[in-house]
């Protein structure tokens, strides 16, 4: 039985505090953002006279009021508020400050604006035609793609269209800025990246970083949507707070949040594949095109990860992956769970299915024959990294048995022969997700561990809690090391004045980086406490400082060994317990003792008190950097990741032939998560990520008007999975193992990888379609998402052409 999420007991009572739950201060004002309704236009006229007449309105600000109006995580190319020109519908133009949120929202309708429209780019195709690109294309290549393609016995070409995906975190973008004395600013923000928010705010307001503190207690979901894009909203609140010298709250409505903020990048990927009779891929040429929206945001990094995942889990001897980021007039797309990974993997899995279909083989056989494998040197990725501890064959073997794949494949064929109203399909897809930021410098973190003199602990790291349980895992790592119950420690809100220069909680790396740092900080303290205990237990109790310090009759116990200086969280630790030992002292169940004299022991909390009285530091700070990341972005070669998280899923779907409705009948998942710190929280990540991915590949449909304004901007029109959409049968199993020695306590990151497994439902939809005579020869071309309309169009295109020709 795993421990619950550390906030579970306050979540269920509603006591957990989110930003907008903070009581409003007496002088606090509220902010709403007026935004563009045009894709690309010059602002001809902007008039706030009617706004200022509205009840409760206090002030209006524009981009010109910022000290610096440009921000951006990789390139500073994006205005916080558009000035003179808008580049997407939903782009912020003005800030309205009022005495209530409702007053601000109502006043927004009174802005008078006139535009001069400019030519807009609203699709990848248009961007390609107009060469509207962000940065040059990039390439990762291995082997002889052209010649091997020519020689390949069979060839196929195709394309996959992948639409965007809204994060749909339940808590919208929200920040409160409190102006403090002497020009300082304190921000409470729902952000995955406290440091970037601090820096963006400081830069925008002309302050130095020392004057801005960003505090993140928790988020009501993030999923990547609050990695970069929460920062500008914090800057908006901070601007008004600075100008008006009162606290300012900005809290977007769901509608405005969806309209303004970026999504998962749409991709349109083209490929040529050459293969032999067995389905072994000999040559692959993939061209990836992503829609970045109007600004760069993280899109170049997202493209990089897509390129690094275009191999899927499959060894392809000759491969060329070219990626081009397109600039369009859509909201600026951004990180979303999986980053570029799902778009690369989707392409690879589609290719496998298509090859199998062409050769009339079961796709599972084609997957197996192409898997990375230690045999025959088939274990090197196209970017030159060895796939170590590869367990995919084992995962698939286990899943195949567990899901009863062969028998069910027969059942499906039989069912499809007789059913008039439904057609079924099944598919088993894989994931091999690279763990680490591909940008080396982001792979660093720091932690502060404080032991109070009653023996309780506070832990502060740069990790932000968005529901994933990073705090629960970190406090488990720390308290386990000290032999204490988890509730002996509290993980404090993330604050830039405690943990500076941190990385976003992203790339599934929250626990890997911050947990390792916290553990290293804990061990520094533990080493000192161990030496103290070792010495103390040789001194009669009546001479201990707790009895004598007030009088000063006894000499102080002095520590003689140097402080621990270590970057490896597994160094010196016993593998099974995960605990490091110093001076042979054991920390167990709240006691500290020497294994040879177990009865001569001291309670942890008294040892801590002795440490204080003997002037031994009870706090420490540690820094951790992930070793071995050597990836050269220019050559596209090197070790991009510390390790891979692997898994596979088998999904069976049923398509309603009359309506196109998709029902997932059953999904089985097997994942390798090494040694989980908290088994149940990890399983929760797997089920949550899978269902989120299922929404992406089925019901979640971003629908824009001809100005690129999002029309499906609320749950009434944008359909994330509901409880009834979960697979009728849903089994998750972890393949626990001790092999991942490179990461803290042998654990593996879990946040993003299982999202990619939802592709099994999408390929299963395709698989179902292939049972129809129409698709016996040609493979379906359905896009992601396979909405009921898209499926219906694939099921019966003629029925549509009657009305659309």
């Amino acid at each position, binding site marked *: 039985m795993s421990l*619950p*999420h550390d*906030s*579970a*007991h306050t*979540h*269920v*009572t*509603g*006591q957990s505090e*989110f930003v*907008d*739950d903070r009581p*409003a201060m007496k002088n606090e004002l509220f902010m709403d953002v007026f935004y563009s309704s045009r894709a690309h236009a010059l602002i001809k006229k902007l008039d706030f006279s009617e706004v200022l007449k509205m009840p409760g309105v206090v002030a209006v600000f524009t981009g010109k009021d910022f000290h610096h109006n440009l921000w951006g995580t990789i390139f500073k190319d994006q205005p916080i508020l558009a000035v003179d020109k808008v580049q997407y519908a939903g782009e912020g133009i003005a800030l309205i400050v009022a005495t209530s949120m*409702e007053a601000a929202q109502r006043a927004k*309708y009174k802005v008078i604006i006139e535009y001069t429209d400019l030519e807009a780019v609203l699709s990848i195709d248009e961007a390609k035609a107009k060469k509207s690109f962000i940065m040059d294309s990039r390439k990762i290549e291995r082997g002889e793609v052209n010649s091997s393609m020519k020689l390949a016995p069979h060839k196929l070409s195709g394309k996959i269209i992948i639409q965007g995906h809204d*994060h*749909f*975190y*339940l*808590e919208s973008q929200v920040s409160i800025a409190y102006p403090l004395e002497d020009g300082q600013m304190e921000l409470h923000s729902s952000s995955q990246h406290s440091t970037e928010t601090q820096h963006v705010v400081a830069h925008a307001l002309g302050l130095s970083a020392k004057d801005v503190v960003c505090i993140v207690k*928790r988020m*009501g*979901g993030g999923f990547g949507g609050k990695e970069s894009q929460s920062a500008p909203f914090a800057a908006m609140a901070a601007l008004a707070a600075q100008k008006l010298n009162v606290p300012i709250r900005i809290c977007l*409505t*769901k509608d405005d949040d969806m309209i303004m903020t970026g999504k998962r990048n749409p991709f349109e990927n083209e490929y040529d594949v050459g293969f032999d009779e067995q389905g072994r891929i000999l040559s692959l040429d993939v061209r990836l095109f992503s829609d970045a929206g109007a600004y760069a945001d993280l899109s170049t990094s997202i493209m990089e990860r897509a390129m690094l995942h275009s191999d899927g889990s499959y060894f392809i001897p000759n491969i060329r992956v070219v990626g081009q980021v397109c600039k369009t007039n859509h909201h600026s797309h951004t990180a979303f769970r999986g980053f570029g990974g799902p778009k690369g993997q989707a392409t690879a899995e589609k290719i496998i299915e298509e090859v199998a279909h062409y050769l009339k083989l079961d796709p599972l056989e084609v997957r197996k024959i192409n898997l990375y494998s230690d045999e025959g040197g088939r274990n090197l990725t196209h970017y030159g990294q060895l796939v170590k501890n590869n367990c995919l064959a084992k995962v698939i073997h286990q899943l195949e048995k567990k899901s009863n794949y062969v028998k069910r494949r027969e059942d499906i064929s039989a069912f499809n022969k007789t059913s008039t*109203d439904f057609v079924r399909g099944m598919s088993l897809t894989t994931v091999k997700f690279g763990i680490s930021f591909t940008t080396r410098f982001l792979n660093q973190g720091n932690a502060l561990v404080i032991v109070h003199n009653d023996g309780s602990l506070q832990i502060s790291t740069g990790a932000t809690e968005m*529901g*994933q*349980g990073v705090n629960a895992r970190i406090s488990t790592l720390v308290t386990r090391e000290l032999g204490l119950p988890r509730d002996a420690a509290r993980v404090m809100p993330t604050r830039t004045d405690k943990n500076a220069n941190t990385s976003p909680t992203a790339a599934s790396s929250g626990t890997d980086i911050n947990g390792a740092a916290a553990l290293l900080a804990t061990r520094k303290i533990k080493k000192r406490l161990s030496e103290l205990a070792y010495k103390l237990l040789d001194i009669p109790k009546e001479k201990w400082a707790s009895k004598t310090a007030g009088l000063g009759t006894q000499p102080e116990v002095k520590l003689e060994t140097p402080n621990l200086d270590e970057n490896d969280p597994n160094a010196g630790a016993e593998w099974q317990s995960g605990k490091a030992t110093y001076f042979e002292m054991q920390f167990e169940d709240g006691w500290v003792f020497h294994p040879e004299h177990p009865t001569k022991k001291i309670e942890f909390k008294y040892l801590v008190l002795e440490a204080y009285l003997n002037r031994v530091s009870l706090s420490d700070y540690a820094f951790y950097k992930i070793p071995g990341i050597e990836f050269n972005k220019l050559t596209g070669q090197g070790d991009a990741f510390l390790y891979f998280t692997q898994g596979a899923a088998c999904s069976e779907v049923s398509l309603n032939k*009359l*309506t196109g409705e998709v*029902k997932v009948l059953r999904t089985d998942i097997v994942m390798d998560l090494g040694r989980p710190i908290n088994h*149940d*929280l990890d399983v*929760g990540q*797997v*089920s*949550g*990520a*899978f*269902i989120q991915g299922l929404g992406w590949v089925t019901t979640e449909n971003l629908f824009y008007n001809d100005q690129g304004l999002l*029309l*499906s901007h*609320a*749950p*009434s*029109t944008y*359909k994330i*999975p*509901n*409880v*009834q959409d*979960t697979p009728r049968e*849903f089994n998750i199993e972890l393949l626990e193992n001790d092999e991942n020695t490179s990461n803290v306590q042998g654990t593996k990151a879990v946040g993003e990888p299982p999202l990619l497994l939802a592709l099994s439902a999408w390929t299963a939809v395709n698989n179902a379609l292939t049972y129809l005579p129409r698709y016996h020869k040609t493979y379906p071309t359905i896009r992601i998402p396979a909405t*009921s*309309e898209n499926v*219906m169009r694939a099921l019966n295109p003629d029925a549509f052409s*009657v*009305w659309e020709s």
Partner: protein
Amino acid sequence: MRQKIIFYLNGKRKEAGAEQASMMLADYLRYDQSLTGTKIVCAEGDCGACSVLRYFPHVPTSVDAQNYLAVNSCITVLAQLDGSSLVTVDALKKNEELHPAQSAMVKCHGSQCGFCTPGFVMAITGMMEEKISKSQTTLTSQEAKNCMTGNLCRCTGYQPIIDAALSIDLKNVESIKSRFYSDHQAQELRAAFAESVHIESEHFSFFAPKTLKEALLYLKANPDAKIMGAATDLGVIHNKRKITLTKLVSLHLMSELYSIDEKAGMVQVGARVTLTELRHFMKDKISEFAHYLDIFASPQIKNIGTVIGNIANASPIGDTPSAFLALNATVCVYGDTGEREVALSEFFLAYRTINIKPGEIITAIKFKLPEVNSTLKLYKNSNRKDLDISAVNLAINVAWTDQTQKELKEITIAAGGVAATPLRLKKTETFLKSRPLSQATIDLAVKEFHSEFKPLSDVRATSAYRRVLIENYFRKFFTDAGVGQ
């Protein structure tokens, strides 16, 4: 005449005048009462994060309504909660002990980010109240899913929440009702219910009369006043800042409007009857209708939303209008000249325009239960099966000449999502009645069918998809009826 609305919140009596009565309950809870456990996400009743429990003890009808039921606080105007007893997540914990719904969520990891959690806890608690009141001690997986159909979670993938609901021991739980609904409270609310309400201020007025006559007089004097059912649509439009609520009339104090009466196969559903109660009634009378209501909106909406509201709203994609059209329903209207009845087929005049005169009040909808040899089918398609608005719906009601069910005696067909109003397809009906049923007849009828409407393309579906869907449903009806076999 009261000048304040009266309700109970977490066991405490509350009164509210104009300033608060015009607020949405969720705003009132969060920003007036500092009860921030209730969350606002979509502000349109589509995610359930704002769920609270509401008991309206004055309803004379079904057992199902005699409970604390989950409702969406984000689209509920405080004024309409006059006479209600409310319980929010903040009060669920008893002393230091979590409510079983809460401890189950903790134990089964039903909460990740925590933002949707209070809503799920309230939805599960609402389901438990129903179970307790019926002395049922088991819960199926499907029932667990059904009770949380109105709640969205983006973190857990739902499985842990389903597990949490299933792990609750329903045998020894104390009901919310026994904890919060005291005799004293019952007395106070009864007293409040006996008296009409009139709140008047510069920006907002609210009138809740005890009789239709009073209502009529008021509407005559105040032609700009709006009758509010459960405000499940009004609340949304208000939250999207497209309207301000200025002058509202509520019929919630009239007991006679809460009943469903059945006499000799004729059913009359009062203006205040909720969709949940209609479903309860339909379960034994027209099971097809009951199933249809299962995929209608969310439990939270159905628990407060009225049947008449769904009709009077006149949305072309409303779900019950086409069903009632197929049942040949009539709308009962009360006005200056007394009562009159309008056939539902004559009721929808244009987009969101209905056939009633200014000042008239809809009091009920009437329909005949289908005869023995008849078939009623209600079809609905939406982007997501549950908790979604129709792209199209189709209702077909056939009375057969005899039990062989080969020959049509009567047929009524109605569709939603294909025109500016819910639509009776009379030409198709006439066509089908004019010749013997055969596959050839159906093929020809399909042409007639399509000629009766011209669907739009929008965020929910393209025009062509709507046509494909509705034709498939149309054909399916007759295939299932054995035509052409």
